[in-house]
């Protein structure tokens, strides 16, 4: 066994010595070496299900498939049934036959084999595919203080910040190996010190900032540091209700994708900020003031990646990360209202709203809203819009979105919620 600086239990040493097989040894070696890079002094038990970022069977990911095969051949699976990011389900998105062929046979040609691998290694259910596993309808909801090993940047930042659980920003595969070994190294966001804030963000806007632009501005400024955000409670109130959680979900996803934020505190709102207040700030914290002009500057700097910058939008994606039930209700109201005002019956741009399979199922049981939404021509899908966009055909389409994450990783163009509504209801 290699010599590790980390304090290890007898059982962990035994696994690393290969007593429980070569594959489990490699899995734990990966977790330990990863922890040693960050000076972790020990491993902690993973207390709740992991959440996987790797949900897609892209044939390119050969090293992942062979690793999964090796785990399965050796009978290894996670202690708790896990959730995973959205599956590439293109049944209800705008796609012509050629695109469907590309999605099914080429891009995600290994999907059914990979899902079988996921089932064998501990997937919770065939509906466990969403980036918002923490929704009530999905049920992978950690409690404050729980030790996790999650991946998916938007889920990690939500679990740490809004739920007060403790997970590092684990990479794809590493989170699975943590679930398999039941261990995650103690460093970073697992420690009290690692959760203290490096930045004071002073929100001094004249109205509620667009969550996705505020998150983008903060992410680009602080990168992977921890921000303590002051001034938002003036707009959002002091209760962490479902509307505020949705706002923080979208803001957090933008901080994580436009930068690498894994934890933020919002004064008077998020659990640790409520308890600790400004004492969470490190002594040498830096300050970033966000006002209307700064948000405008950030938004105006987004490059337009469309070939024809004046093109009319052809597709609109709402829901990256996946929408909550309440967001589906709100968007339905707003789209129906905007169409009524402009005298349209259906949306002017083919629009897809995405949510977790279980959230969509719940929404469908609300027959009134479901009928109103589908009458506008808007489609509901559990897909990840990133998966839709990541191919040469779809990348050429003028796609608009209210997601700063989708904008960052694709050629889609960012519109604020009100700009989206205006576009969908244009005369």
């Amino acid at each position, binding site marked *: 066994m290699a010599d590790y600086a980390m304090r290890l239990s007898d059982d962990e040493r035994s696994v690393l010595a290969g007593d429980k097989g070569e594959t489990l040894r490699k899995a734990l*070696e990966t977790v330990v070496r990863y922890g040693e890079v960050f000076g972790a002094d020990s491993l902690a038990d993973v207390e709740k299900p992991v959440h996987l970022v790797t949900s897609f069977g892209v044939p*390119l990911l050969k090293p992942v498939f062979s*690793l999964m095969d090796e785990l399965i051949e050796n009978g290894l699976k996670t202690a708790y049934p896990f959730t995973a990011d959205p599956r590439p389900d293109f049944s209800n998105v705008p796609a012509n036959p050629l695109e469907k062929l590309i999605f099914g046979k080429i891009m995600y040609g290994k999907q059914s084999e990979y899902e079988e691998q996921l089932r064998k290694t501990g997937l919770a259910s065939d509906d466990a595919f969403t980036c918002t596993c923490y929704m009530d309808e999905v049920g992978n909801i950690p409690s404050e203080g729980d030790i996790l090993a999650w991946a998916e940047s938007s889920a990690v930042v939500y679990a740490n910040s809004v739920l007060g659980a403790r997970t590092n920003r684990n990479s*794809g595969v590493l989170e699975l190996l943590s679930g398999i070994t039941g261990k995650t190294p103690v460093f970073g966001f697992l420690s009290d010190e690692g959760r203290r804030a490096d930045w004071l963000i002073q929100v001094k806007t004249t109205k509620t900032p667009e969550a996705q632009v505020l998150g983008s501005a903060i992410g680009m400024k602080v*990168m992977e540091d921890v921000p303590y955000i002051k001034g938002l409670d003036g707009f959002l109130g002091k209760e962490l209700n479902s509307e505020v959680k949705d706002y923080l979900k979208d803001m957090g996803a933008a901080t994580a994708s*436009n930068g*690498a934020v894994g934890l933020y505190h919002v004064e008077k709102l998020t659990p640790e900020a409520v308890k600790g207040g400004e004492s969470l700030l490190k002594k040498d914290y830096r300050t970033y003031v966000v006002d209307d002009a700064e948000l405008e500057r950030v938004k105006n700097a987004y490059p337009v990646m469309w070939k024809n910058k004046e093109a009319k939008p052809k597709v609109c994606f709402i829901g990256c990360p996946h929408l909550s039930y309440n967001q589906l209700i709100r968007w339905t109201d707003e789209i129906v209202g905007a169409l009524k005002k402009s005298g349209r019956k259906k949306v002017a741009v083919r629009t897809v709203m995405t949510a977790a399979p279980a959230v969509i199922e719940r929404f469908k049981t609300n027959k009134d809203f479901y009928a109103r939404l589908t009458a506008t021509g808007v489609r509901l899908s559990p897909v990840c819009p990133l998966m839709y966009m*990541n191919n040469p055909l779809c990348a050429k389409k003028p796609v608009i979105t209210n997601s700063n994450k989708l904008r960052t990783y694709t050629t889609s163009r960012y519109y604020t919620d009100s700009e989206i509504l205006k576009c969908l209801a244009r005369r």
Partner: protein
Amino acid sequence: MEFQGRVILGGECTLEAVVTKQGFNTLASCQKSAMAKKDRILCSDQNNPDLFNKNITGKALCLPKTIGSTTGGMVLQTVADMGIAPAAMLFSESIDSLAASGVILADIWNKHTIITIDRLGADFLDAVRSGMNLEIKKDGTVILKEN
């Protein structure tokens, strides 16, 4: 000029530098070339003017750290397995969790070593320029050589 960093994965070689002063978004940078199964990675991150459309395959990628999606480590592991990863990753700051995962996964599960050195300091990133030759030593020394 000579800089000393911490060795995560050691090796000795001379490589051409390609430099980003901002965080390297692994998914946004690599996905286009990797998905198209190209034999090299032309950085596709629209938000990174330092690297956009530049070849990073086989080079010494000099960066502060990586950012973006948590698929980052898995993407690094995959491009390493495809033989199109940077030959070395030289971090001015401490390595981040996604990059560390990627290089360790590639090393343990795919026997592919991306030479990885971190904590080279802000002066390193100020001094190094794309196109320079870098001599990398096993002990984490990086020597900048003017062409």
